[in-house]
């Protein structure tokens, strides 16, 4: 229903910069997630969209209309809080009705709307209860009904599930996604939990230190991290320092590749953009994307290394290994039947094949 744009939005609290030059163009009906560690500026960004925090600079637009000077209560947004924030002195029904009451909607209409909202979250029987009489999950569902009752243009979620236990979190995150899909509303979701972000978003904005590290689909973020932070923050990863040997001539229309020398291996991966021979880079390889073989592979197979098994941990469905390749420890996660062969205590040498290699400029080295 609403396109949300943030243009060069920054927020300073005194000398600290909480959000630094945030740019986003969020499409009508899109579900985006701001993912990052605590203190990365994701909540401040959300609160700026909600009008609870004033940007220090930059512009926030809903459907092209500048919202910077529009107070929170006139923005017509729905915000879900970490602590659900149900008014403790009002019944469930009065909580849901709150937004309609303050707008002066007719009573009959309000009651009808409250009924249908509570129906939607399957809490019709609880209309007259007080919030304190509900379970944590029910409270959060009432909060969802309350935020949807006023038919907001944009749905904002500030870690709404982080106070709940794991099972509840799993079911509720799909309820949230389902509600958003049914109402076709633009949604911005803040979380530090990557599995939540991956499960429900159309697009993920990974934030760190007030800046966007990378924005993209789940696959982009997971398989093509563009910065060291993203590669490390999302999922488990091996980071190996290396040097560019040479860019690889690619066929027209194909992405350009580079060969990198790292930990005694020659690895071929996607060019992060214009690296030259001799540049310092970091090579990332996810433990689950590394295959393990007992015997050496035929000469000339790309992205292969031989190493010494340092540690094996059997975790049931998976086996975790640490393999030392030319003095560098490489984490490997192996699943499937073949993993069982790895448990042979006698074995000391294995061959690794790195199936998916990401090359990232080493900012630390060049600085």
């Amino acid at each position: 229903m609403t396109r949300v744009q943030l243009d060069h939005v920054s927020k300073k609290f005194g000398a600290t910069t909480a959000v630094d030059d945030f740019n986003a163009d969020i499409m009508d009906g899109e579900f985006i997630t701001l993912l990052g560690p605590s203190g990365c500026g994701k909540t401040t960004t959300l609160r700026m969209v909600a009008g609870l925090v004033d940007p220090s600079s930059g512009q926030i637009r809903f459907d092209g209309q500048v919202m910077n000077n529009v107070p929170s209560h006139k923005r017509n947004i729905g915000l879900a809080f970490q602590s659900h924030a149900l008014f403790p002195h009002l019944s469930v029904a009065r909580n849901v009705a709150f937004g309609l009451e303050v707008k002066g909607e007719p009573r009959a209409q309000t009651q009808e709307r409250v009924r249908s909202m509570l129906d939607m979250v399957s809490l019709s029987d609880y209309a007259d209860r007080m919030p304190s009489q509900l379970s944590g999950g029910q409270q959060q569902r009432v909060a969802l009904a309350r935020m949807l009752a006023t038919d907001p243009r944009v749905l904002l979620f500030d870690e709404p599930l982080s106070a709940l236990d794991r099972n509840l979190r799993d079911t509720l995150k799909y309820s949230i996604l389902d509600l958003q899909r049914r109402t076709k509303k633009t949604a911005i979701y803040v979380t530090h939990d990557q599995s939540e972000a991956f499960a429900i978003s159309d697009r993920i904005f990974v934030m760190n230190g007030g800046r966007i590290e990378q924005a993209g689909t789940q696959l982009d973020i997971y398989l093509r991290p563009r910065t060291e932070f993203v590669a490390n923050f999302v999922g488990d990863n091996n980071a190996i320092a290396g040097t560019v040997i040479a860019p690889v001539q690619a066929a027209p229309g194909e992405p350009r590749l580079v060969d990198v020398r790292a930990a005694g291996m020659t690895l071929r991966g996607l060019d992060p953009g214009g690296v030259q021979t001799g540049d310092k880079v970091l090579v990332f390889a996810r433990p689950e994307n590394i295959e393990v073989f007992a015997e050496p592979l035929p000469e000339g197979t790309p992205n292969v290394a031989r190493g010494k098994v340092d540690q094996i941990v059997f975790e049931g469905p998976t086996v975790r290994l640490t393999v030392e390749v030319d003095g560098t420890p490489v984490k490997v996660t192996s699943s499937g039947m073949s993993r069982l062969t790895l448990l042979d205590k006698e074995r000391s040498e294995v061959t690794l094949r790195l199936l998916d290699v990401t090359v990232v400029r080493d900012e630390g080295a060049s600085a």
Partner: protein
Amino acid sequence: MTHAPAEVALEYETATERPRRFWATPRARGLTLLLPAVLVALLFSLIPLVYLFQISLTNDSSFFFEAEYTLDNYREVFSRYVPAIGETVYLAAAATLICLLFGYPFAYILIRKIRYRELVRTLMTFPLFGPLYLAFGLFYVLLPTGPLGGFFATFGIDLAQYLFSTAAVLFSMAVFTFPFMVMNIGAALSNVDPMLEEAARTLGAKPWQIFTRVLFPLSWSGIVAGFLMCFGWNLGVFAQPQLLGSPKEQSVISLQMYFKGLVQFNYGLAAALGVILMVMAFAVTWISLRFSRGALGA
């Protein structure tokens, strides 16, 4: 983490309109909301106190016509009222000490052993209705025809002998400040985990050792805060000496001030006595605030 302070600062970043002029800023709006309270405090607390100090430096009624500034009033206070100041401090200290000695066990029992705490708190509000009713009621109790006279007489005690005595004044002062003392000590004791006492007991500590080595050090701040608070209140004692005391107790500063100021119209001297009392009460409060980290955490 360099971003941690940002989260703290959020508390104040709630203004929705972008501040443009000074009067639209949160700070200006906050100051506007504070204005009535600040005006009241300035007009009726701070300015009168400053004026009191000014009057205390003038002679007779000279301030009314043409102020002559002099230290005569203070000279008089230090030549003639030192015993009165001594009596005031003595009564306040003694009453507060009694309060502490009886209040500590009371607070301990209240926190550790009593389930009917609400009842105790409810009855504890009676002294708070004021020292006047308290002194009035005790006056009747101490009359020869009083309600408990017969009861005490069976133990060979003549209650009436305590009317117009130091004992009666001290007792009524202690009862008046008792709730304040219990409140302060109780607050400190309720923060002491009962497990600590049990741990001490299992380590072989005797009850008095538990008190001197565990409870007393851990509730020390409450004791100091309670003592100073009650002492400060008791310095301003007025009704109890007047109704229950002898002329010796009636020499306390508050009463003197009243007679000098409102009966004899010697405003300068009354003001000087007031300044002395104020300074003493302030010193006590200042020290107590260092200890109590009061209700506001300030």
